[in-house]
């Protein structure tokens, strides 16, 4: 029998039909889809013992508690730590993915000098030479750490300067420093005990302060587990997320927050809603109303709301003395539920400013936001874990990434109590990286290692015998048998929390602040950008609509 072309076609049709009744097409489709998840260039977590470790986030100065899931020594997941007394299980969106940031394509892996690559030896030699030739300025974005102490020691005796770049929360507390003599970073807001909060454009429910701190309070209010009458009055030029969820939203013309604060102060005094203070704002109610594009009646009603449920706490977005002065009128400075002092010791030094212009070299720590650019002709050594794009730095030095370096975490800004934590290095960097403190210690033998400084600080805490260590359980410091026990708890992700400092703070207000807000640091940023994050991440953060920037809201 001769096989024809027709036979072949019929046989093929039969084979094709038969094949559909076999697992071949379906199984190949299924297996191929699984294979596509495992392409060799897709990083896979290592296989090995799985464990969960506690730590503290170091992406920004808020020091949120972390639970880090580790597989074979690699971090494969990050979650909030419910037992952490400050963050209470909340994290910002960046922290949830922080274990992946160490593998970010923009991660700095080699020393860069100018447009080419260089080596750590050459960078060290260049910095040591510059230190001998003229004054060195070291800029820190996260003061109060053990590394900050090393920076100060290095600049001492070298005709150098140690400067800090303050966060907006610290800048908002600056007016109280001039009125009380207490450094701004020793203040915080007692949000937990206040009954009325007046926010002048501050994104309280949108990423301000320690993530989740106020959001939790507000959620508990809604659930009825805390003061159900807690009031949040948001004064904003647009319907921000915080304004949308506030008890009241007062819409004003953009940039007139200080004018409204003066109007409110005037109304409080004229209506005898608060005790006479001697000073009175120069702006009349009608002028304030006109500037803010609101009615006089609205200001009077708002003034009555301020005193309806005390204590009342006024929070400014940035350095605005006219807004801060409202807290003095309302008796909220140094009082429960107001602006309170949490610490005796200040970590603030001079703000980065004119010193950099006369410097021979400027060293910028990796904690300084990428968009901070020093206005100087000096040789700039910039530490960063991620490359944020074009920069004026002469040297770009790869710094440790997320949880790759030992660092301590002092009290976050705006916190009402003092705290201290240690972020142990849980992860290893794939390439050679050094923190600025490690870099300096190879040049200056006087510098004390970070581990030793942390040990000394733990000893100080142990001697004070106050506060509580929150680890797996809350342990009063007085019950800890030795400083080693305290250190052990902190190294394992615990946090020491002090006790509120009692006592009123005498405020001397010589003249009523001008209604024009002033902010020395406004020249470089008005939007809180998470430190150590490259511009790319910050851009993604803002564009992801997780947090509204004011200009975006206007758009």
């Amino acid at each position, binding site marked *: 029998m001769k096989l024809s072309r027709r036979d072949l076609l019929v046989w093929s049709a039969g084979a094709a039909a038969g094949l559909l009744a076999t697992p071949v097409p379906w199984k190949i489709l299924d297996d191929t889809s699984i294979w596509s998840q495992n392409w060799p260039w897709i990083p896979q*977590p290592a296989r090995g013992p799985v464990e969960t470790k506690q730590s503290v986030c170091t992406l920004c100065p808020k020091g949120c508690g972390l639970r880090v899931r580790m597989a074979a020594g690699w971090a494969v997941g990050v979650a909030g730590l419910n037992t952490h007394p400050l963050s209470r299980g909340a994290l910002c969106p960046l922290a949830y993915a922080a274990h992946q940031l160490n593998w970010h394509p923009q991660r700095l892996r080699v020393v860069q000098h100018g447009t080419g690559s260089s080596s750590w030896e050459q960078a060290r030699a260049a910095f040591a030479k510059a230190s001998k030739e003229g004054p060195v300025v070291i800029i820190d974005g996260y003061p109060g750490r053990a590394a900050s102490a090393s920076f100060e020691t290095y600049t001492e005796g070298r005709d150098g300067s140690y400067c800090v770049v303050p966060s907006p929360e610290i800048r908002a507390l600056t007016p109280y420093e001039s009125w009380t003599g207490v450094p701004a970073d020793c203040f915080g807001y007692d949000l937990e005990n206040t009954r009325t909060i007046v926010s002048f454009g501050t994104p309280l429910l949108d990423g301000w302060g320690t993530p989740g701190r106020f959001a939790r309070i507000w959620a508990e209010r809604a659930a009825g587990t805390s003061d159900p009458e807690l009031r949040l009055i948001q004064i904003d030029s647009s319907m921000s997320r915080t304004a949308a969820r506030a008890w009241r939203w007062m819409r004003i013309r953009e940039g007139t927050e200080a004018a409204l604060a003066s109007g409110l102060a005037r109304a409080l005094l004229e209506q005898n809603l608060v005790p006479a203070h001697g000073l009175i704002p120069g702006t009349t109610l009608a002028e304030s109303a006109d500037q803010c594009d609101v009615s006089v009646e609205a200001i009077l009603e708002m003034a009555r709301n301020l005193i309806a449920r005390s204590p009342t706490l006024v929070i400014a977005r940035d350095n605005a003395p006219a807004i801060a002065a409202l807290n003095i009128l309302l008796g909220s400075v140094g009082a429960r539920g107001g602006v309170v002092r949490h610490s005796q010791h200040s970590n603030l030094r001079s703000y980065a400013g004119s010193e950099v212009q006369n410097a021979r070299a400027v060293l910028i720590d990796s904690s300084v936001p990428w968009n901070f650019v020093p206005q100087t002709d000096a040789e700039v050594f910039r530490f960063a874990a991620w490359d944020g794009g074009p920069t004026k730095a002469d040297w770009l030095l790869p710094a440790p990434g997320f949880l790759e370096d030992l660092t301590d975490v002092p009290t976050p800004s705006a916190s009402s109590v003092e705290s201290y934590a240690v972020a142990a290095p849980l992860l290893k960097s794939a390439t050679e990286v050094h923190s600025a403190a490690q870099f300096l210690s190879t040049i200056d033998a006087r510098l004390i290692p970070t581990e030793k400084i942390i040990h000394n600080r733990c000893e100080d805490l142990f001697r004070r015998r106050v506060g509580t260590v929150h680890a797996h359980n809350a342990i009063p410091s007085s019950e800890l048998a030795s400083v080693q026990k305290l250190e052990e708890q902190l190294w394992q992700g615990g946090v020491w929390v002090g006790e509120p400092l009692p006592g009123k703070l005498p405020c001397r207000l010589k003249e009523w602040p001008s209604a024009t807000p002033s902010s020395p640091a406004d020249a470089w940023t008005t939007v809180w950008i998470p430190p150590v994050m490259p511009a790319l991440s910050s851009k993604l953060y803002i564009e992801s609509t997780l947090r509204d920037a004011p200009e975006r809201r206007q758009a």
Partner: protein
Amino acid sequence: MRRWRNPLVFAFGVTVALFIGWVAFPRVLYSQKQQPLDFLHKTHAEKSGLTDCAECHVIREDGIFAGLPATEKCAGCHSERIGESKAEAILVESYIKPAQETPWLVYSRQPANVWFSHAIHVKRASLSCAECHSSHGEQNSVRMYELNRISGYSRDLWGHSMSRLRNGPHEGMKMSDCEKCHRQRNVEVGCLGCHQ
């Protein structure tokens, strides 16, 4: 005969395809791999009294499943040879004495994007190990490990039956198997329950 020619050729094509699909294809798709040594679950249960799976396959206090026991655990009894078997000789000489982990080929290993908690299934849902792993612990030899050449995973995920029509509760560990079991028990976990 001439009028039956086309149907016969067509049927022949179908038959060949069916043979290839159901008989030849699985043999080509799966490569067979030997385990590093022949572990005798049954012998360990009978002679050593290790009747509870959790005695070696521990769920730690923090809820994390420790998986296969480390060589250190085996060394508790087998620091030196106590029998005559070839498997024990391999274990002692190749893994315990050099302090190396035995490179077991895990039949039920899931892709990295799957988050599975043994603690929830065993402790909270009270499922027995055999519900998913069959009578693995009663066998007196280790099965051949069949590796899917395309996906790179064990055949146990798909199940031994290529058709998946008669899958028992312990045969198949694909997402649809998880969903089926959850549906039967009215347990909803959503996407993030398993893909975190």
